[in-house]
Protein backbone atom coordinates (compact mmCIF):
# COMPACT_ATOMS: atom_id res chain seq x y z
CA UNK A 1 0.00 0.00 0.00
CA UNK A 2 1.43 3.35 -0.91
CA UNK A 3 1.24 6.49 1.14
CA UNK A 4 -0.42 8.16 -1.76
CA UNK A 5 -3.41 5.85 -1.49
CA UNK A 6 -3.69 6.79 2.15
CA UNK A 7 -3.69 10.50 1.41
CA UNK A 8 -6.22 10.13 -1.33
CA UNK A 9 -8.27 7.97 1.02
CA UNK A 10 -8.39 10.70 3.65
CA UNK A 11 -9.55 13.25 1.10
CA UNK A 12 -12.11 10.82 -0.29
CA UNK A 13 -13.41 10.08 3.19
CA UNK A 14 -13.99 13.81 3.58
CA UNK A 15 -15.98 13.85 0.33
CA UNK A 16 -17.87 10.72 1.27
CA UNK A 17 -18.95 12.22 4.58
CA UNK A 18 -20.24 15.26 2.74
CA UNK A 19 -22.24 13.09 0.36
CA UNK A 20 -23.65 10.98 3.17
CA UNK A 21 -24.70 14.08 5.02
CA UNK A 22 -26.27 15.53 1.90
CA UNK A 23 -28.40 12.48 1.11
CA UNK A 24 -29.16 11.46 4.66
CA UNK A 25 -29.51 14.74 6.55
CA UNK A 26 -30.80 13.15 9.75
CA UNK A 27 -27.53 11.33 10.44
CA UNK A 28 -26.25 12.26 13.87
CA UNK A 29 -23.17 14.41 14.11
CA UNK A 30 -21.64 11.97 16.52
CA UNK A 31 -21.70 9.26 13.87
CA UNK A 32 -20.15 11.61 11.35
CA UNK A 33 -17.46 12.76 13.74
CA UNK A 34 -16.62 9.30 14.92
CA UNK A 35 -16.45 8.00 11.35
CA UNK A 36 -14.06 10.79 10.43
CA UNK A 37 -11.98 10.03 13.50
CA UNK A 38 -11.99 6.33 12.80
CA UNK A 39 -10.77 6.96 9.26
CA UNK A 40 -8.01 9.23 10.44
CA UNK A 41 -6.98 6.80 13.14
CA UNK A 42 -6.92 3.97 10.63
CA UNK A 43 -4.71 6.01 8.34
CA UNK A 44 -2.44 6.79 11.26
CA UNK A 45 -2.13 3.12 12.10
CA UNK A 46 -1.46 2.18 8.49
CA UNK A 47 1.05 4.96 7.88
CA UNK A 48 4.11 3.20 9.34
CA UNK A 49 3.43 0.18 7.18
CA UNK A 50 3.34 2.14 3.97
CA UNK A 51 6.29 1.66 1.71
CA UNK A 52 8.33 4.70 0.82
CA UNK A 53 8.69 3.74 -2.80
CA UNK A 54 6.65 5.65 -5.29
CA UNK A 55 5.94 5.52 -9.01
CA UNK A 56 8.52 7.25 -11.13
CA UNK A 57 6.23 9.97 -12.40
CA UNK A 58 5.82 11.25 -8.86
CA UNK A 59 9.55 11.48 -8.18
CA UNK A 60 9.77 14.91 -9.73
CA UNK A 61 7.49 16.63 -7.25
CA UNK A 62 6.87 14.23 -4.40
CA UNK A 63 9.33 12.83 -1.89
CA UNK A 64 8.95 10.37 0.93
CA UNK A 65 11.88 10.88 3.26
CA UNK A 66 11.71 10.49 7.05
CA UNK A 67 10.76 14.12 7.47
CA UNK A 68 7.85 13.83 5.06
CA UNK A 69 6.59 10.70 6.76
CA UNK A 70 6.92 12.37 10.14
CA UNK A 71 4.92 15.39 9.09
CA UNK A 72 2.28 13.21 7.48
CA UNK A 73 1.84 11.41 10.76
CA UNK A 74 1.81 14.77 12.50
CA UNK A 75 -0.99 16.04 10.25
CA UNK A 76 -3.03 12.92 10.96
CA UNK A 77 -2.57 13.22 14.71
CA UNK A 78 -3.57 16.85 14.85
CA UNK A 79 -6.56 16.21 12.61
CA UNK A 80 -7.68 13.41 14.86
CA UNK A 81 -7.42 15.65 17.90
CA UNK A 82 -9.17 18.53 16.18
CA UNK A 83 -12.05 16.26 15.21
CA UNK A 84 -12.31 15.16 18.81
CA UNK A 85 -12.20 18.76 20.00
CA UNK A 86 -14.97 19.59 17.54
CA UNK A 87 -17.17 16.86 18.95
CA UNK A 88 -16.51 18.14 22.46
CA UNK A 89 -17.24 21.73 21.54
CA UNK A 90 -20.28 20.83 19.45
CA UNK A 91 -22.93 21.92 21.98
CA UNK A 92 -21.94 25.57 21.91
CA UNK A 93 -20.46 25.58 18.43
CA UNK A 94 -23.74 24.60 16.80
CA UNK A 95 -25.42 27.68 18.22
CA UNK A 96 -23.44 29.75 15.77
CA UNK A 97 -23.51 27.63 12.64
CA UNK A 98 -25.93 27.44 9.77
CA UNK A 99 -29.01 25.55 10.98
CA UNK A 100 -26.87 24.12 13.76
CA UNK A 101 -25.03 22.00 11.22
CA UNK A 102 -21.59 20.67 11.85
CA UNK A 103 -21.03 18.18 9.03
CA UNK A 104 -18.53 20.35 7.19
CA UNK A 105 -16.54 20.72 10.40
CA UNK A 106 -15.80 17.01 10.09
CA UNK A 107 -15.19 16.73 6.37
CA UNK A 108 -13.20 19.90 5.74
CA UNK A 109 -10.49 19.03 8.29
CA UNK A 110 -10.01 15.73 6.48
CA UNK A 111 -9.45 17.50 3.19
CA UNK A 112 -7.17 20.00 4.92
CA UNK A 113 -5.27 17.09 6.42
CA UNK A 114 -4.73 15.61 2.97
CA UNK A 115 -3.45 19.01 1.84
CA UNK A 116 -1.00 19.12 4.73
CA UNK A 117 0.19 15.63 3.96
CA UNK A 118 0.87 16.64 0.37
CA UNK A 119 2.68 19.73 1.55
CA UNK A 120 4.95 17.53 3.65
CA UNK A 121 6.10 15.75 0.52
CA UNK A 122 6.28 18.69 -1.84
CA UNK A 123 9.44 18.80 -3.82
CA UNK A 124 8.70 21.71 -6.10
CA UNK A 125 7.07 25.08 -5.81
CA UNK A 126 4.01 24.15 -7.87
CA UNK A 127 3.14 21.34 -5.48
CA UNK A 128 3.80 23.64 -2.56
CA UNK A 129 1.51 26.27 -3.99
CA UNK A 130 -1.31 23.94 -4.87
CA UNK A 131 -1.40 22.04 -1.59
CA UNK A 132 -0.79 25.15 0.46
CA UNK A 133 -3.75 26.84 -1.18
CA UNK A 134 -5.95 23.83 -0.57
CA UNK A 135 -5.10 24.15 3.11
CA UNK A 136 -5.54 27.92 3.12
CA UNK A 137 -8.90 27.97 1.37
CA UNK A 138 -10.20 25.26 3.69
CA UNK A 139 -9.10 27.38 6.60
CA UNK A 140 -10.96 30.43 5.23
CA UNK A 141 -14.14 28.41 5.50
CA UNK A 142 -13.28 26.81 8.83
CA UNK A 143 -12.34 30.10 10.51
CA UNK A 144 -15.59 31.75 9.46
CA UNK A 145 -17.58 28.61 10.08
CA UNK A 146 -19.42 29.86 13.17
CA UNK A 147 -21.09 32.38 10.91
CA UNK A 148 -23.67 33.61 13.36
CA UNK A 149 -20.90 34.82 15.62
CA UNK A 150 -19.60 38.21 14.59
CA UNK A 151 -16.24 37.27 16.10
CA UNK A 152 -15.84 34.27 13.86
CA UNK A 153 -16.81 36.26 10.77
CA UNK A 154 -14.42 39.04 11.65
CA UNK A 155 -11.68 36.52 12.14
CA UNK A 156 -12.65 35.00 8.79
CA UNK A 157 -12.37 38.35 7.01
CA UNK A 158 -9.03 39.12 8.62
CA UNK A 159 -7.65 35.70 7.78
CA UNK A 160 -9.03 36.01 4.28
CA UNK A 161 -7.46 39.39 3.52
CA UNK A 162 -4.09 38.52 5.02
CA UNK A 163 -4.14 35.01 3.62
CA UNK A 164 -4.83 36.32 0.14
CA UNK A 165 -2.13 38.94 0.59
CA UNK A 166 0.36 36.28 1.56
CA UNK A 167 -0.69 34.18 -1.41
CA UNK A 168 0.02 37.13 -3.68
CA UNK A 169 3.42 37.70 -2.15
CA UNK A 170 4.17 33.99 -2.29
CA UNK A 171 3.35 33.74 -5.99
CA UNK A 172 5.38 36.83 -6.73
CA UNK A 173 8.28 35.31 -4.82
CA UNK A 174 7.92 32.05 -6.71
CA UNK A 175 7.98 34.05 -9.94
CA UNK A 176 11.24 35.74 -9.07
CA UNK A 177 12.91 32.59 -7.82
CA UNK A 178 11.85 30.87 -10.99
CA UNK A 179 13.13 33.83 -12.98
CA UNK A 180 16.49 33.81 -11.23
CA UNK A 181 17.10 30.06 -11.19
CA UNK A 182 15.00 28.85 -14.10
CA UNK A 183 13.34 26.09 -12.10
CA UNK A 184 10.59 25.35 -9.64
CA UNK A 185 12.22 22.25 -8.22
CA UNK A 186 13.88 22.71 -4.83
CA UNK A 187 16.88 20.58 -5.71
CA UNK A 188 17.39 22.39 -9.01
CA UNK A 189 16.96 25.75 -7.27
CA UNK A 190 19.64 24.73 -4.78
CA UNK A 191 22.00 23.80 -7.59
CA UNK A 192 21.33 27.02 -9.46
CA UNK A 193 21.93 29.05 -6.31
CA UNK A 194 25.30 27.40 -5.83
CA UNK A 195 26.26 28.60 -9.31
CA UNK A 196 27.95 32.02 -9.14
CA UNK A 197 26.51 32.88 -12.56
CA UNK A 198 22.99 33.10 -11.11
CA UNK A 199 21.78 36.64 -10.60
CA UNK A 200 22.12 37.30 -6.90
CA UNK A 201 19.77 40.30 -6.52
CA UNK A 202 16.93 38.52 -8.31
CA UNK A 203 17.40 35.31 -6.36
CA UNK A 204 17.61 37.18 -3.10
CA UNK A 205 14.53 39.24 -3.89
CA UNK A 206 12.55 36.15 -4.78
CA UNK A 207 13.74 34.17 -1.78
CA UNK A 208 12.90 37.06 0.55
CA UNK A 209 9.41 37.38 -0.94
CA UNK A 210 8.85 33.65 -0.67
CA UNK A 211 9.93 33.71 2.96
CA UNK A 212 7.56 36.65 3.58
CA UNK A 213 4.70 34.70 2.05
CA UNK A 214 5.47 31.63 4.13
CA UNK A 215 6.11 33.88 7.11
CA UNK A 216 2.43 34.83 7.03
CA UNK A 217 1.43 31.20 7.22
CA UNK A 218 3.67 30.37 10.17
CA UNK A 219 2.97 33.69 11.91
CA UNK A 220 6.46 35.14 11.75
CA UNK A 221 7.08 38.79 12.56
CA UNK A 222 6.42 41.25 11.10
CA UNK A 223 3.55 39.31 9.49
CA UNK A 224 2.09 38.10 12.75
CA UNK A 225 -0.46 40.86 13.26
CA UNK A 226 -3.38 38.72 12.14
CA UNK A 227 -2.71 35.88 14.53
CA UNK A 228 -4.21 37.14 17.82
CA UNK A 229 -7.41 38.38 16.21
CA UNK A 230 -7.96 35.34 14.06
CA UNK A 231 -7.09 32.88 16.81
CA UNK A 232 -9.43 34.63 19.20
CA UNK A 233 -12.32 34.81 16.79
CA UNK A 234 -12.13 31.39 15.19
CA UNK A 235 -13.94 28.44 16.78
CA UNK A 236 -11.60 26.85 19.31
CA UNK A 237 -11.02 23.57 17.41
CA UNK A 238 -10.11 25.57 14.32
CA UNK A 239 -7.75 27.71 16.36
CA UNK A 240 -5.99 24.59 17.57
CA UNK A 241 -5.82 23.32 13.99
CA UNK A 242 -4.42 26.64 12.78
CA UNK A 243 -1.88 26.98 15.49
CA UNK A 244 -0.54 23.45 15.24
CA UNK A 245 -1.42 21.96 11.87
CA UNK A 246 -1.13 25.01 9.68
CA UNK A 247 2.05 26.06 11.42
CA UNK A 248 3.67 22.65 11.07
CA UNK A 249 2.74 22.51 7.41
CA UNK A 250 4.23 25.96 6.92
CA UNK A 251 7.41 24.88 8.63
CA UNK A 252 7.88 21.76 6.60
CA UNK A 253 7.71 23.89 3.45
CA UNK A 254 10.09 26.41 5.00
CA UNK A 255 12.46 23.58 5.84
CA UNK A 256 12.45 22.37 2.26
CA UNK A 257 12.85 25.84 0.82
CA UNK A 258 15.68 26.68 3.18
CA UNK A 259 17.45 23.45 2.33
CA UNK A 260 17.66 24.91 -1.14
CA UNK A 261 18.41 28.51 -0.15
CA UNK A 262 21.03 27.66 2.44
CA UNK A 263 22.64 24.79 0.56
CA UNK A 264 26.42 24.53 0.51
CA UNK A 265 27.89 27.42 -1.48
CA UNK A 266 24.60 29.19 -1.99
CA UNK A 267 25.12 32.74 -3.19
CA UNK A 268 22.32 34.03 -0.99
CA UNK A 269 23.04 31.80 2.01
CA UNK A 270 24.46 34.34 4.42
CA UNK A 271 21.79 36.96 3.66
CA UNK A 272 18.94 34.50 4.14
CA UNK A 273 20.50 33.24 7.32
CA UNK A 274 20.78 36.77 8.69
CA UNK A 275 17.19 37.40 7.65
CA UNK A 276 16.06 34.30 9.52
CA UNK A 277 17.94 35.25 12.64
CA UNK A 278 16.48 38.75 12.67
CA UNK A 279 12.98 37.53 11.88
CA UNK A 280 13.23 34.74 14.44
CA UNK A 281 14.44 37.03 17.22
CA UNK A 282 11.79 39.61 16.39
CA UNK A 283 9.06 36.99 16.26
CA UNK A 284 10.04 35.51 19.59
CA UNK A 285 10.08 38.94 21.21
CA UNK A 286 6.95 40.32 19.53
CA UNK A 287 5.13 37.17 20.53
CA UNK A 288 6.24 37.09 24.12
CA UNK A 289 6.26 40.71 25.17
CA UNK A 290 2.67 41.67 24.21
CA UNK A 291 1.49 38.36 25.65
CA UNK A 292 2.33 39.70 29.08
CA UNK A 293 -0.52 42.18 28.84
CA UNK A 294 -3.27 39.92 27.52
CA UNK A 295 -6.43 39.29 29.46
CA UNK A 296 -7.86 36.58 27.22
CA UNK A 297 -6.28 33.15 27.45
CA UNK A 298 -7.07 32.44 23.81
CA UNK A 299 -5.19 35.57 22.78
CA UNK A 300 -2.42 34.65 25.14
CA UNK A 301 -2.10 31.28 23.45
CA UNK A 302 -2.08 33.08 20.11
CA UNK A 303 0.82 35.27 21.16
CA UNK A 304 2.55 32.26 22.60
CA UNK A 305 2.11 30.51 19.28
CA UNK A 306 3.83 33.48 17.64
CA UNK A 307 6.79 33.28 19.98
CA UNK A 308 7.08 29.55 19.37
CA UNK A 309 7.26 30.31 15.67
CA UNK A 310 10.16 32.58 16.54
CA UNK A 311 12.09 29.81 18.26
CA UNK A 312 11.39 27.54 15.31
CA UNK A 313 12.72 30.11 12.85
CA UNK A 314 15.84 30.48 14.97
CA UNK A 315 16.25 26.71 14.89
CA UNK A 316 16.00 26.81 11.10
CA UNK A 317 18.69 29.48 10.98
CA UNK A 318 21.21 27.13 12.62
CA UNK A 319 22.24 24.67 10.00
CA UNK A 320 23.97 21.44 10.92
CA UNK A 321 27.13 21.74 12.90
CA UNK A 322 29.89 19.25 13.41
CA UNK A 323 29.12 19.09 17.13
CA UNK A 324 25.48 18.34 16.73
CA UNK A 325 24.08 15.21 15.27
CA UNK A 326 20.76 17.00 15.06
CA UNK A 327 20.00 18.85 11.87
CA UNK A 328 18.05 22.05 12.16
CA UNK A 329 15.13 20.39 10.39
CA UNK A 330 15.31 17.68 13.04
CA UNK A 331 15.13 20.25 15.82
CA UNK A 332 12.14 21.87 14.15
CA UNK A 333 10.40 18.53 13.79
CA UNK A 334 11.13 17.65 17.39
CA UNK A 335 9.97 21.04 18.62
CA UNK A 336 6.72 20.74 16.70
CA UNK A 337 6.19 17.23 18.02
CA UNK A 338 6.44 18.56 21.55
CA UNK A 339 4.45 21.65 20.67
CA UNK A 340 1.50 19.57 19.50
CA UNK A 341 0.43 17.95 22.78
CA UNK A 342 0.89 21.06 24.89
CA UNK A 343 -0.96 23.40 22.57
CA UNK A 344 -3.78 20.99 21.90
CA UNK A 345 -4.09 20.36 25.62
CA UNK A 346 -4.33 24.09 26.20
CA UNK A 347 -7.05 24.49 23.59
CA UNK A 348 -8.84 21.37 24.78
CA UNK A 349 -8.98 22.93 28.22
CA UNK A 350 -10.31 26.15 26.76
CA UNK A 351 -12.89 24.26 24.72
CA UNK A 352 -14.04 22.31 27.78
CA UNK A 353 -14.43 25.51 29.76
CA UNK A 354 -16.37 27.01 26.91
CA UNK A 355 -18.56 23.93 26.73
CA UNK A 356 -19.35 24.50 30.40
CA UNK A 357 -20.55 27.99 29.66
CA UNK A 358 -17.43 29.78 30.85
CA UNK A 359 -15.50 32.47 29.06
CA UNK A 360 -11.96 32.46 27.78
CA UNK A 361 -10.51 35.28 29.84
CA UNK A 362 -7.85 34.81 32.46
CA UNK A 363 -10.35 35.87 35.08
CA UNK A 364 -12.58 32.97 34.09
CA UNK A 365 -9.79 30.68 35.22
CA UNK A 366 -10.02 32.02 38.75
CA UNK A 367 -10.50 29.27 41.27
CA UNK A 368 -10.37 26.56 38.62
CA UNK A 369 -8.38 24.43 41.03
CA UNK A 370 -11.45 24.29 43.28
CA UNK A 371 -14.01 23.76 40.55
CA UNK A 372 -12.17 21.07 38.72
CA UNK A 373 -8.74 20.14 40.10
CA UNK A 374 -8.13 17.70 37.27
CA UNK A 375 -8.62 20.30 34.56
CA UNK A 376 -6.54 22.78 36.53
CA UNK A 377 -3.73 20.27 36.78
CA UNK A 378 -3.86 19.55 33.05
CA UNK A 379 -3.82 23.23 32.17
CA UNK A 380 -0.90 23.68 34.55
CA UNK A 381 1.03 20.95 32.78
CA UNK A 382 0.23 22.42 29.41
CA UNK A 383 1.25 25.94 30.41
CA UNK A 384 4.35 24.77 32.24
CA UNK A 385 5.42 22.92 29.13
CA UNK A 386 4.65 25.88 26.89
CA UNK A 387 6.76 28.01 29.20
CA UNK A 388 9.55 25.48 28.85
CA UNK A 389 9.79 24.15 32.35
CA UNK A 390 12.40 21.41 32.74
CA UNK A 391 11.13 17.83 32.81
CA UNK A 392 8.34 18.80 30.44
CA UNK A 393 8.50 18.32 26.71
CA UNK A 394 8.66 22.05 26.05
CA UNK A 395 11.99 22.40 27.78
CA UNK A 396 13.88 20.00 25.55
CA UNK A 397 12.76 21.73 22.37
CA UNK A 398 13.85 25.11 23.66
CA UNK A 399 17.08 23.63 24.97
CA UNK A 400 18.00 22.30 21.54
CA UNK A 401 17.24 25.64 19.95
CA UNK A 402 19.34 27.49 22.51
CA UNK A 403 22.19 25.02 22.25
CA UNK A 404 22.14 25.30 18.49
CA UNK A 405 22.25 29.09 18.66
CA UNK A 406 25.05 29.03 21.22
CA UNK A 407 26.99 26.48 19.23
CA UNK A 408 26.95 28.75 16.20
CA UNK A 409 27.74 31.78 18.30
CA UNK A 410 24.55 33.71 17.46
CA UNK A 411 24.65 35.53 20.77
CA UNK A 412 22.30 38.33 19.77
CA UNK A 413 19.56 35.96 18.68
CA UNK A 414 20.20 33.79 21.72
CA UNK A 415 19.71 36.68 24.10
CA UNK A 416 16.47 37.68 22.34
CA UNK A 417 15.25 34.10 22.65
CA UNK A 418 16.17 33.96 26.31
CA UNK A 419 14.38 37.25 27.02
CA UNK A 420 11.31 35.93 25.22
CA UNK A 421 11.47 32.71 27.22
CA UNK A 422 11.76 34.67 30.45
CA UNK A 423 8.72 36.75 29.53
CA UNK A 424 7.01 33.47 28.70
CA UNK A 425 7.59 32.25 32.23
CA UNK A 426 5.92 35.39 33.47
CA UNK A 427 2.67 35.14 31.57
CA UNK A 428 2.17 31.40 31.78
CA UNK A 429 2.75 31.35 35.50
CA UNK A 430 0.56 34.39 35.95
CA UNK A 431 -2.27 32.32 34.50
CA UNK A 432 -1.38 29.26 36.55
CA UNK A 433 -1.39 31.35 39.71
CA UNK A 434 -4.82 32.69 38.88
CA UNK A 435 -6.12 29.15 38.61
CA UNK A 436 -4.86 28.29 42.06
CA UNK A 437 -4.96 31.42 44.14
CA UNK A 438 -7.79 33.68 43.05
CA UNK A 439 -11.18 32.75 44.39
CA UNK A 440 -13.66 32.41 41.57
CA UNK A 441 -17.27 33.39 41.60
CA UNK A 442 -19.47 30.62 42.91
CA UNK A 443 -20.12 28.90 39.61
CA UNK A 444 -20.85 25.21 39.95
CA UNK A 445 -18.22 22.57 39.41
CA UNK A 446 -17.19 21.81 35.84
CA UNK A 447 -18.14 18.53 34.32
CA UNK A 448 -15.92 16.78 31.83
CA UNK A 449 -16.80 13.66 29.92
CA UNK A 450 -14.82 10.54 30.66
CA UNK A 451 -13.48 10.35 27.11
CA UNK A 452 -12.20 13.89 27.32
CA UNK A 453 -10.50 13.08 30.57
CA UNK A 454 -8.74 10.17 28.91
CA UNK A 455 -7.65 12.21 25.88
CA UNK A 456 -6.47 15.13 27.98
CA UNK A 457 -4.76 12.86 30.47
CA UNK A 458 -2.97 11.07 27.65
CA UNK A 459 -1.78 14.39 26.20
CA UNK A 460 -0.49 15.45 29.62
CA UNK A 461 1.24 12.12 30.06
CA UNK A 462 2.89 12.51 26.66
CA UNK A 463 4.16 15.94 27.68
CA UNK A 464 5.66 14.58 30.87
CA UNK A 465 7.09 11.43 29.34
CA UNK A 466 8.66 13.23 26.40
CA UNK A 467 10.12 15.67 28.91
CA UNK A 468 12.22 12.97 30.55
CA UNK A 469 12.38 10.35 27.84
CA UNK A 470 12.54 11.94 24.38
CA UNK A 471 14.10 8.88 22.83
CA UNK A 472 11.01 7.89 20.84
CA UNK A 473 11.59 11.03 18.84
CA UNK A 474 15.27 10.36 18.34
CA UNK A 475 14.61 9.04 14.88
CA UNK A 476 13.12 12.38 13.94
CA UNK A 477 15.97 14.28 15.50
CA UNK A 478 18.49 12.45 13.45
CA UNK A 479 16.36 13.02 10.36
CA UNK A 480 18.06 12.41 7.08
CA UNK A 481 20.36 15.14 6.02
CA UNK A 482 18.84 17.37 3.39
CA UNK A 483 18.98 15.81 -0.01
CA UNK A 484 21.01 18.67 -1.40
CA UNK A 485 23.70 18.52 1.25
CA UNK A 486 24.18 14.87 0.46
CA UNK A 487 24.99 15.53 -3.15
Amino acid at each position, binding site marked *: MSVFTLEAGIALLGLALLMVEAFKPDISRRTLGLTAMAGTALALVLLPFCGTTQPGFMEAWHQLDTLAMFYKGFALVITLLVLWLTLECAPYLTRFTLDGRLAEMFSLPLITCAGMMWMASARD*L*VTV*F*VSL*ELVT*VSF*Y*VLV*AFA*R*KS*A*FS*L*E*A*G*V*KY*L*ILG*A*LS*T*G*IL*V*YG*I*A*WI*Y*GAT*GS*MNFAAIGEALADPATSKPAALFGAALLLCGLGFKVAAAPFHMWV*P*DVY*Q*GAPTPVTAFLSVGSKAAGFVVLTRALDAFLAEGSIIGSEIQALLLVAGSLTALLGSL*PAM*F*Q*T*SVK*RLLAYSSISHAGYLLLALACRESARFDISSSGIVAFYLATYLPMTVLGFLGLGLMRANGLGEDIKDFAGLSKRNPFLALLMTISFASLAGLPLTAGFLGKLFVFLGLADHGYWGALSCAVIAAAAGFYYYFKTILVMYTVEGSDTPALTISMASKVVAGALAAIILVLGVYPKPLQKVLAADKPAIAAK
Partner: protein
Amino acid sequence: MITLGHYLVVSGMLFALGLAGVIARRNIIIVYMCLEMMLSAANLALVGFSRFHLVNGLPDYTAQSLVFFTITVAAAEVAVGLAIIVALFRTKQSVDVESVTKLQG
Protein backbone atom coordinates in the same frame (compact mmCIF):
# COMPACT_ATOMS: atom_id res chain seq x y z
CA MET B 1 13.18 47.66 -27.65
CA ILE B 2 10.96 45.97 -25.09
CA THR B 3 12.97 43.76 -22.79
CA LEU B 4 11.92 41.35 -20.07
CA GLY B 5 12.86 44.13 -17.68
CA HIS B 6 10.02 46.27 -19.05
CA TYR B 7 7.50 43.55 -18.27
CA LEU B 8 9.00 43.02 -14.84
CA VAL B 9 8.79 46.70 -14.04
CA VAL B 10 5.15 46.82 -15.16
CA SER B 11 4.41 43.76 -13.07
CA GLY B 12 6.25 45.26 -10.13
CA MET B 13 4.34 48.52 -10.41
CA LEU B 14 1.02 46.70 -10.61
CA PHE B 15 2.02 44.62 -7.59
CA ALA B 16 3.02 47.73 -5.66
CA LEU B 17 -0.24 49.47 -6.66
CA GLY B 18 -2.19 46.54 -5.32
CA LEU B 19 -0.18 46.46 -2.12
CA ALA B 20 -0.68 50.19 -1.60
CA GLY B 21 -4.41 49.69 -2.09
CA VAL B 22 -4.50 46.83 0.42
CA ILE B 23 -2.81 48.99 2.99
CA ALA B 24 -4.60 52.25 2.30
CA ARG B 25 -8.18 51.33 1.42
CA ARG B 26 -10.90 50.75 3.96
CA ASN B 27 -13.59 49.18 1.81
CA ILE B 28 -13.08 45.43 2.13
CA ILE B 29 -14.37 44.74 -1.37
CA ILE B 30 -11.91 47.18 -2.90
CA VAL B 31 -9.14 45.74 -0.74
CA TYR B 32 -10.07 42.41 -2.20
CA MET B 33 -9.87 43.78 -5.73
CA CYS B 34 -6.40 45.08 -4.96
CA LEU B 35 -5.41 41.62 -3.78
CA GLU B 36 -6.54 40.23 -7.13
CA MET B 37 -4.39 42.84 -8.80
CA MET B 38 -1.36 41.65 -6.85
CA LEU B 39 -1.97 38.07 -7.89
CA SER B 40 -2.30 39.09 -11.51
CA ALA B 41 0.89 41.11 -11.28
CA ALA B 42 2.66 38.01 -10.01
CA ASN B 43 1.20 36.11 -12.96
CA LEU B 44 2.60 38.70 -15.36
CA ALA B 45 6.06 38.21 -13.88
CA LEU B 46 5.69 34.44 -14.16
CA VAL B 47 4.57 34.58 -17.77
CA GLY B 48 7.36 37.01 -18.58
CA PHE B 49 9.99 34.78 -17.06
CA SER B 50 8.53 31.72 -18.73
CA ARG B 51 8.57 33.38 -22.15
CA PHE B 52 12.25 34.21 -21.86
CA HIS B 53 13.34 30.99 -20.23
CA LEU B 54 13.29 28.81 -23.29
CA VAL B 55 13.10 25.04 -23.01
CA ASN B 56 13.77 23.37 -26.34
CA GLY B 57 13.17 26.71 -27.99
CA LEU B 58 9.67 27.03 -26.49
CA PRO B 59 8.46 29.01 -23.48
CA ASP B 60 8.67 27.05 -20.23
CA TYR B 61 5.20 25.65 -19.80
CA THR B 62 5.71 24.49 -16.22
CA ALA B 63 5.62 28.15 -15.20
CA GLN B 64 2.53 28.76 -17.30
CA SER B 65 0.88 25.79 -15.64
CA LEU B 66 1.49 27.49 -12.33
CA VAL B 67 -0.18 30.61 -13.75
CA PHE B 68 -3.15 28.47 -14.70
CA PHE B 69 -3.30 27.16 -11.14
CA THR B 70 -3.03 30.64 -9.64
CA ILE B 71 -5.89 31.90 -11.74
CA THR B 72 -8.03 28.99 -10.65
CA VAL B 73 -7.09 29.41 -7.01
CA ALA B 74 -7.77 33.13 -7.24
CA ALA B 75 -11.26 32.40 -8.57
CA ALA B 76 -11.95 30.03 -5.68
CA GLU B 77 -10.58 32.54 -3.21
CA VAL B 78 -12.79 35.26 -4.63
CA ALA B 79 -15.84 33.06 -4.28
CA VAL B 80 -15.14 32.10 -0.66
CA GLY B 81 -13.96 35.58 0.18
CA LEU B 82 -17.03 37.29 -1.17
CA ALA B 83 -19.22 34.78 0.66
CA ILE B 84 -17.52 35.68 3.93
CA ILE B 85 -17.82 39.38 3.14
CA VAL B 86 -21.52 39.00 2.38
CA ALA B 87 -22.05 37.14 5.64
CA LEU B 88 -20.20 39.86 7.49
CA PHE B 89 -22.21 42.55 5.76
CA ARG B 90 -25.41 40.86 6.81
CA THR B 91 -24.43 41.08 10.45
CA LYS B 92 -22.84 44.50 10.38
CA GLN B 93 -24.36 46.40 7.43
CA SER B 94 -20.90 47.71 6.60
CA VAL B 95 -17.88 46.73 4.58
CA ASP B 96 -15.59 49.26 6.19
CA VAL B 97 -12.38 47.73 7.51
CA GLU B 98 -12.80 49.79 10.63
CA SER B 99 -16.05 48.11 11.46
CA VAL B 100 -14.06 44.93 11.94
CA THR B 101 -12.75 45.87 15.32
CA LYS B 102 -14.56 43.70 17.82
CA LEU B 103 -11.54 41.54 18.35
CA GLN B 104 -9.06 43.38 20.43
CA GLY B 105 -6.84 42.58 23.35
